[in-house]
């Protein structure tokens, strides 16, 4: 699925440069669940963004299904994101003016899916995450756990190859966290997804097949618990 070779990402900070990624080499197999842990500011989110084509590395290659995301043009990366990569964010990032149903449909807009198809698929995705009865609610009318479920439905409605989750349970209480992780695990198994999840929470990370540790921009696989 993914093969990262010598990936670096440097940011300018004042007169100096900060290395968010300092030569990351990583191979991720199809259908794998990788959890990435590490202290704040050590490059976890940057790695996730490079994997999702949201940011370009300063050097190195990011091979995704045979394409180097680092070398693709912006519109090509857009297409890859639109069709093959789903994102889940810590703060849910739902569009506040759109209903749950419309938020899920928004993921299908760049794929040119017809309106009727869009509605049907979004309704199905919401049903999969247990929110069929909340389809017409605005994000502000939903709890944090429900909002994250909508975000999961939005990420999965396009049937992506990979799901990138950045602290998906960071804003949730323990019970809701367990519900969400249980849901993600279920969907991961049912859909045969590749799941890459950044988390501070060791309980969450412990459910993954492999756990990587990011420190000072370097990644080391700390635990391989392939299940």
């Amino acid at each position: 699925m993914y093969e990262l070779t010598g990936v670096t990402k440097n940011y300018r900070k004042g007169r100096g440069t900060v290395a968010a990624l300092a030569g990351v080499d990583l191979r991720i197999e199809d259908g794998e669940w990788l959890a990435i842990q590490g202290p704040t500011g050590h490059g976890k989110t940057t790695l996730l963004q490079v994997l999702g084509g949201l940011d370009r590395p300063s050097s190195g290659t990011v091979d995704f299904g045979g394409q180097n995301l680092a070398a693709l043009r912006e519109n090509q990366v857009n297409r890859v994101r639109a069709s093959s990569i789903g994102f889940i964010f810590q703060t849910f990032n739902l569009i506040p003016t759109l209903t749950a149903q419309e938020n899920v449909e928004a993921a299908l807009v760049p794929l040119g899916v017809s309106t009727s198809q869009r509605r049907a698929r979004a309704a199905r995705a919401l049903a999969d995450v247990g929110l069929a009865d909340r389809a017409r609610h605005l994000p502000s009318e939903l709890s944090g756990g429900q909002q994250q479920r909508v975000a999961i439905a939005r990420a999965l409605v396009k049937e992506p190859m990979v799901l990138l989750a950045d602290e998906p349970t960071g804003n949730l209480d323990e019970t809701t966290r367990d519900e969400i992780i249980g849901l993600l695990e279920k969907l991961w198994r049912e859909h045969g997804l590749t799941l890459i999840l950044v988390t501070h929470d060791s309980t969450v990370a412990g459910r993954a097949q492999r756990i990587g540790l990011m420190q000072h921009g370097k990644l080391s696989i700390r635990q391989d618990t392939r299940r």
Partner: protein
Amino acid sequence: MFFTYLRRELRRRMRQAVFIALGLAVGIGLVITVTAASAGVAQAQGTVLHALYGVGTDITVTKAPAANSGGPFGFRIRRGPSGSGQRPKAGTTFSRSTLLNRALGTLSSSSVTTISGLHGVAAAAGALSLTDLAISGTIPSAPTGGSGGAGFGSGPSSIKTSTFTVNGTQLSAGEVGPLGSGKITSGRTFTSSDAAADVAVLDSGYATQHKLTTGSKIDVAGTGFTVIGIVSQPQGGSPADVYIPLGRAQVLAGMKNQVNTVYVAASSAATIPAVSREISAALPKSTVTTSADLASEVTGSLASAASLARNLGKWLAVAVLAAAFLLASLLSMSAVARRVREFGTLKALGWRSRRIIGQVLGESVVIGAVGGLAGIALGFGGAALVSRLAPALTASLGQATGTATPGGARAFPGGGPPGGGPGGFRRLAPDAASVITVHLSAPVTAGVIVLAVVLAIAGGLLAGSFGGWRAARLRPAEALARVE
């Protein structure tokens, strides 16, 4: 999805959207009002110019009178019928009437043909602006030291003079000419069959004053003319009292093949300056006057209103509109700044920058369109207020500038009144300067509404472009990292 998203977003920031739309509305409303007021002023000027100039006439060609041609003049009563060399006996009654051309220099009738043949000239008509001077009375006793003809340089009160203006009108020129701006209120105007007939059309004011109607007889240079029509000329001009066929005027004034005014209609307004130059080149000694020249001589509150509309009004509208555009752009950018994470999320979902820009532009254009509609309503309201509240404007055309404007009231110094006394010969006009009162209306034309719509959409696009440009520049990772 586009319209749903657009509608919801506008509803979310309703207050800001209304604020932007109102700003644009005020700007556009002001542009419409000022444009309508300007159009009204132009229309009023047109009314004034038509009154002075004649409908359909764009240019007039005259010639300044020859030097000293306006000097003292007098009648000379012929000596006795036997030619004995004796002056008529005191107490003999007499009555004479003659047509005089003292106000303008003369042009050959061929000038009309020359002008007609110029490029850009739609029609040209020659005319003779003349004065009929009638004198009657009783021969006074012999002045001391007098010899030869009897002059009336110091005529006694028993001698009466009367004058009226006569215009010899070319009949085949359609709307062009001194009758072009008039309205026949009784009888008929000339037809080509009247060319050699002793028929006259009277100005309504003159006809009323002298109790003349269609069918009445009037004496012009000693010849009886039948009145065939009464014409009402627009307010403000100094129309001739009597119109007769040009050919008859030429014969009676002894000015065969001569005219003193040529009325010219250009094929379009745009060609007037070029036609004016061509005429000046073809007839170098003539005075060519366009409606623009005449407009520049219009003074009074109408001129002030025109100046106000042109200068202050225009710049005020531009300033308000620019401020509204700037405000809309800034608020649109600020709205985009608040939605950075939202746009970052959409990019993460695979939305292309173009689609996001389109969304921002769409929102701005809708706000602009609403502002435009409100602006049109405000503009109509403003124009109606101008029409209702604007005081009546006066326009006056100055005199004695040395140019000869047909129909205009001008003083030509150097002449003398009948009787030979010193002073200026004044063309017969009811007043020295034409003062016209015009009610200002502010018409909102379709063109102005189109302008408003274009401005509204342009304002929306401009505001949206700034916002969209800002949204397009966002790197997804950077946008998602933004803390709200």
